[in-house]
């Protein structure tokens, strides 16, 4: 009923608009309008009423699609926050799981996640930044090398995360790790097994493209005039990068780091078999220890736990914590990025 009314009102508005067009008929506008090859090409009827009804429907469809996506997102957030909010207490965040993970908190998972993203950032941020500096400052825009690196970066961004997991297993654990064991420890098994270091490095590879793209975007916002000014004063290229380009790109590096952390905190597939543990009674003390992590915790609690219904609140609580973490990081990154983009226009 309401829709009908709305539809009618829109239709009458559209008709009004048509009237203004028909008024133009006097000066020959209409003839060109109808004979135009553009419309013949499109095989459109000149019946304007029909066209506008169609327009209303088509525009409505696109709007509906956008709204459906937004609605799904909102429903998802509401359901998860609704289910998790009762668990969201200080105790939940700071205690260990108890009684076969059916009670207690998720502190080791939070700790493990934090450790994971810190080690990951230490590895990914400098490498990503340097690659971005190469792409914007050293490489010629259309040179073969720059194009191959860009292609490589984009490929890295689309490789499924599980492949990184396989790579972490095949390269870090079985090649580097076991190699280190046999060289330094005489074959004693220490590094040749899943641990937090290998998991973090695997994750660093996964998040490298995120950092590169963000930093590159920030570097491009630094005006060419500033680089020229520095060079014209007799600064070398490296001095220019260090003193003019780099300070101007710090917000971009920060954005990249935050986005990378947000991605790394949420990904599970790469660490499934490179270091994440089901349950540990102690926090990881060294780089060769396994660790618990939020995403993996959600996964095992929902699929491998003995009594899924009993632990449902914990699952919702953990999911909510993870979502809050990634969302807040994303929002910070979006704000930073918005500021960088504004600077480019200014």
């Amino acid at each position, binding site marked *: 009923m309401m829709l009908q009314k709305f539809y009618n009102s829109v239709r009458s508005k559209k008709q009004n608009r048509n009237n203004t067009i028909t008024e133009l008929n006097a000066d020959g506008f209409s003839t060109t309008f109808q004979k135009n090859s553009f419309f013949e090409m499109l095989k459109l009827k000149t019946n304007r009423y029909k066209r506008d009804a169609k327009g209303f429907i088509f525009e409505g469809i696109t709007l509906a699609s956008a709204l459906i996506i937004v609605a799904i*997102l909102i429903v998802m957030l509401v*359901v998860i926050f609704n289910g998790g909010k009762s668990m969201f207490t200080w105790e939940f965040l700071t205690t260990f799981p108890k009684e076969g993970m059916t009670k207690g908190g998720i502190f080791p998972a939070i700790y493990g996640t934090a450790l994971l993203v810190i080690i990951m950032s230490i590895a990914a941020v400098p490498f990503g930044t340097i690659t971005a500096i190469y792409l914007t400052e050293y*490489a010629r825009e259309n040179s073969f090398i720059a194009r191959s690196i860009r292609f490589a970066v984009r490929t890295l961004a689309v*490789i*499924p995360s599980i492949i990184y997991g396989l*790579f972490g297993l*095949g390269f870090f654990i079985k090649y580097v790790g076991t190699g280190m064991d046999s060289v330094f420890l005489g074959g004693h098994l220490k590094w040749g097994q899943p641990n937090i270091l290998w998991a973090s490095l695997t994750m660093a590879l996964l998040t490298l493209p995120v950092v590169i793209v963000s930093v590159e975007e920030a570097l491009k916002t630094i005006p060419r005039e500033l680089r020229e000014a520095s060079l014209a004063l007799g600064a070398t290229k490296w001095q220019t990068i260090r003193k003019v380009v780099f300070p101007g790109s710090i917000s971009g590096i920060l954005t990249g780091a935050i986005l990378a952390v947000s991605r790394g905190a949420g990904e599970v597939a790469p660490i499934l078999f490179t270091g994440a543990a089901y349950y540990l009674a102690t926090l990881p003390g060294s780089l060769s220890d396994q660790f618990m992590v939020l995403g993996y915790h959600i996964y095992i609690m929902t699929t491998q736990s003995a009594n899924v219904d009993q632990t449902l609140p914990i699952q919702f609580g953990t999911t909510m914590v993870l979502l809050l973490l990634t969302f807040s990081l994303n929002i910070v990154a979006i704000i930073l990025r918005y500021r960088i983009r504004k600077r480019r226009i200014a």
Partner: protein
Amino acid sequence: MNKIKQIISKLTGLFRKQKAMPGDKIDITHKRFRWSDFIAEKIIKGVAFLSITIIILIFFFVFRESFPIFNFGSKDKPKTEQLTATKNQNNTANQNPQQEQYGVETTAPEKQEQYGAETSEPAKQEQYGVETTEASQQEQYGVETGKDSLMMGENKTPNEATESGSTNASNKQAIKTLITKTWQPVSDNPRYGLLPLLLGTFKITIISLLFAAPLAILAALYTSVFANKRLKEIIKPTIEMLAGIPSVVIGFFALMVMASFLQNLFGYATRLNSFVGGIAMGLAAIPIIYTITEDALTAVPKTYYEASLALGASKWQTAFFVILPAATPGIFAAVLLGIGRVFGETMIALMATGNAAMMGLNPFESVRTLAATIGAEMAEVVFGDTHYNVLFLIGSMLFIFTFIINAIAEFWVKGKLMKKIQGK
């Protein structure tokens, strides 16, 4: 003495920082060598190749682990048998320290046989069982080279060790079962039929695309053409926020909420099936398809839009008949990358598809995807065994597939888009 002093002062002069005082004449006729610039440039250039190196390494190491499955005929393989046994022991029978020692100290064939029999895992037993025809020969070999390989164990890289010879026979078997309809890696008679996994993956991909692609493309059309600026600034970041949701969270939502909801709605029998999984993965693919489509749509020159409007076409006609066709290659790339995302998605597949390797075409049946198979089974598999190699083979397939998809999206589609927009 004076000469030495001169040399010293020359040398120290080399390292002293050259200060250009005001009024100094600056020498421009000789290229000065600047260490910091030189080193910085070398480091930056070196690091820049990292991303390329990583890709090559991924290629190499993922393939390398899957390679033994094709290599069962190779002569030098049995050499590593001993090591593999030790290695396997480390992983599967860690609880038993005596056994661990055994592998290092003795080479007696009977004991090795015994070890095989002792392992708790049925899959392993099976492997040793199948081997019987070749067993005596291999054991003989073990006696001869046992000591050598033990000494080599110190230096050998583990990977060589795991390019397992012990699984030669089962590899032979496995490769025959690759193109069958059963995926039963852990059984008395392991079968590694990839067909149900492939079918499952394609089923999921199609379902999720049918769900995600129209929604995302139409939404992108709305924000880039119809929406006013304010609405656009709300909708666009919101949809992009979807990209920030970890897939494990989407998986959780699908498993705990969506599955029951959809089951109640449609009343099918299995709660977790390819339909639920497909929709959930669609949620993961939407932001990718949306963002790239949006970019492609906004890249269409404004003149197209204005020209069409000036000819009297309405907004929606312009949108559907001018802008959308002009951006087709970009949208195609978006869908391709969406496919890549769904194809390789692991966590959602693990959590929401039911994980049963079935051959049916019914969308309301459980399925198992390629990526989920790796995710679920890799943690329990014995390093270097056939099952392990097959999982890496699946990984290689996924890698090649996404690599090709990305290459197409990057080069072919981009070239086409440029052509179309520039009208060349």
